[in-house]
């Protein structure tokens, strides 16, 4: 009944309820807007294809989705063609023109060593847009597998994995990621693996809840009677029916991946200098805020904010369409 409502809580650990069973009360009923709708229900008289087409049409009519998609598209273009779009070299210092305020020559001003802030913001999109989707994909693939196994097999697997998930989620994601990155060193692959792994635990929670709802439905009983293998049931029978919540979870996690990566960079454990990076640029220049050089930190900050908000707009619209 209340299944599916733990999903949002995990974002910041709002749900401390352990996975005791399908009826384990979500700590906060109603907290989850990521309701796991969009499953098999209602697919009886309308073909799946028609539903999908209708959902796509609704999505393209949603203003929030269009705005979000355009902003994300802009940053993707920056990430791919950054050095071609940037008016100056992003890593070409010029001591003679340091700390220049925004002007027609330098729209976003220059930083302490005379690098063009606009160019650094444009080129800085690349790293975060490489690492975040990779980490989220890894987390979604792993988390889906864990969640399917937990939800379908139940029993000891569910118990053990559930406890580990609880322990890992007893710390804010940023801190867990930070701890591991400090331990093994900040490299792109480390960031992808660490963030992907932490997210997989959160995603597993959502998938598990969605699977528990499917578990007692007739098509699974039929599959069991046909003596299908466990893997076949999990990935061929159940997976297509829980894709909705997984898609929503993917977009939500993508937003948080950017959040986490930017934060780690800001703390000095993300992408290393001199590669332009929004979080690192903020950290390196925030000391100059008191001196009034605000443009060096404000513009990268706005870039992060716009990307995260855009992804959330997309996620919210997808979710709204799936619930209808």
């Amino acid at each position, binding site marked *: 009944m209340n299944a599916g409502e733990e999903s949002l*809580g995990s974002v*910041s*650990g*709002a*749900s*401390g*309820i*352990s996975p005791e069973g399908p*009826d384990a*009360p979500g*700590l*906060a*009923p*109603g*907290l989850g*807007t990521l309701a796991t709708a969009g499953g098999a229900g209602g697919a009886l008289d309308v073909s799946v294809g028609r539903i999908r087409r209708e959902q796509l049409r609704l999505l393209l009519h949603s203003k929030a989705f269009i705005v979000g998609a355009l902003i994300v598209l802009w940053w993707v273009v920056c990430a791919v063609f950054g050095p071609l779009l940037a008016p100056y070299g992003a890593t070409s210092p010029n001591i003679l023109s340091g700390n220049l305020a925004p002007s027609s020559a330098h729209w976003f001003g220059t930083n302490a060593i005379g690098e063009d802030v606009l160019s650094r913001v444009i080129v800085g999109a690349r790293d975060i847009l490489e690492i975040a989707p990779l980490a989220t994909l890894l987390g979604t693939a792993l988390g889906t597998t864990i969640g399917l196994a937990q939800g379908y097999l139940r029993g000891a697997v569910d118990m053990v994995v559930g*406890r*580990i998930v*609880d*322990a*890992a989620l*007893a*710390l*804010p994601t*940023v*801190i*867990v990621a*930070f*701890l*591991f990155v*400090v*331990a*093994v060193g900040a490299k792109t692959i480390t960031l992808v693996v660490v963030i992907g792994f932490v997210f997989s635990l959160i995603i597993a929670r959502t998938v598990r809840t969605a699977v528990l709802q499917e578990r007692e439905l007739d098509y699974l009983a039929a599959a069991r009677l046909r003596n299908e293998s466990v893997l076949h049931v999990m990935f061929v029978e159940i997976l297509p029916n829980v894709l909705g919540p997984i898609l929503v979870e993917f977009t939500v996690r993508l*937003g*948080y991946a950017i*959040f986490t990566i*930017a*934060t780690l960079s*800001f*703390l*000095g*454990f993300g992408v290393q200098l001199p590669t332009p990076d929004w*979080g690192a640029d*903020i*950290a390196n220049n*925030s000391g100059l*805020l*008191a001196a*009034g050089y*605000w443009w060096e*930190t*404000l513009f990268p*900050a*706005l870039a*992060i*904010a716009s990307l*995260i*908000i855009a992804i*959330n707009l997309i996620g*919210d619209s997808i979710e709204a369409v799936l619930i209808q």
Partner: protein
Amino acid sequence: MQHRKEGTELSQYASKRLGLALVTLVLLSLIIFYAGQVLPGNPGRAILGNLASQQAVAALNHKLGVDRPLLTQYWSWVSGIVRGNLGTSYQYQAPVSSFLFPALGRSLKLAAVAFVIVVPLSILGGVIAALNRGRVVDRLISTTSLSLSTVPEFVSGIVLIVVFAIVLKWLPVTASAPDGSPLFTQLRYLILPAIPLVLILFGYIARMARTGTIEALDSDYVRTATLKGLPRRVVIRRHVLRNSLLPTITVIATQTGYLIGGLFVVENLFVYPGIGRLILTAANDKDFPMLEAGVLVIGVVYLAATLVADLLYTVLNPRIRLGKAE
């Protein structure tokens, strides 16, 4: 039918929940030990750098006790913590606790300021949104607060510094008041760092308050109260709010844990000497005992907050309590 056993059920649930929290705590300590003491490999080398001789590294490793078997190391770490000994800082050659607890105290002060601001504000926001369900006000509150709660604290912090400290010059740029400042001045310095935390928490608490209020508004007892002729104001105050705030209380308790995590970032932006700043400094210095103890303390605060939230919710909401009984 279940009334007779209610007391025992509650204590059973509480002890079960406490047991689970302990299991989680042990797993958490394993994760931290693994990341802090196994993954870094060779602390002596990390501290002394690449140029140090092999003998010096081995001697330091021996002195730090990291050349012992892992199980022995874990056991001495954990048993030390149980006896109140959090370890010795590599960097300062002094007990970790003498740095950790003052820093935690300062962090809690900052967290308290954030809480005092966010709780009334977000409950008010959520209730207003619910009373105007589906209208512009509702959409505005819900969308803005959710967007804000997904932006990293240091990003909103930068915008706030630029606006309030640099352009308007209303508030100081740093978080630490000069030594010996009166309490009021200290609090004034803490307002700006608290706001990024407020922005993140606002979304969650307001959403909870909104959902709770809407559920209460749709309930039979509110319809009854309205139908028997009570003015809307009285219905809202006496029947709606009292019930809608129940789940909100627990979300607030849970968010205490989050708040500690958020401090991690905010303290580093505003150069505030709390536990977050301590952990980052320890990480940069490769001071692993300090790092591990700091992260563990955050984990314990987080677990304790979740535990209190769950128990509070169970005590306050009999439906969950009875539903839980097997």
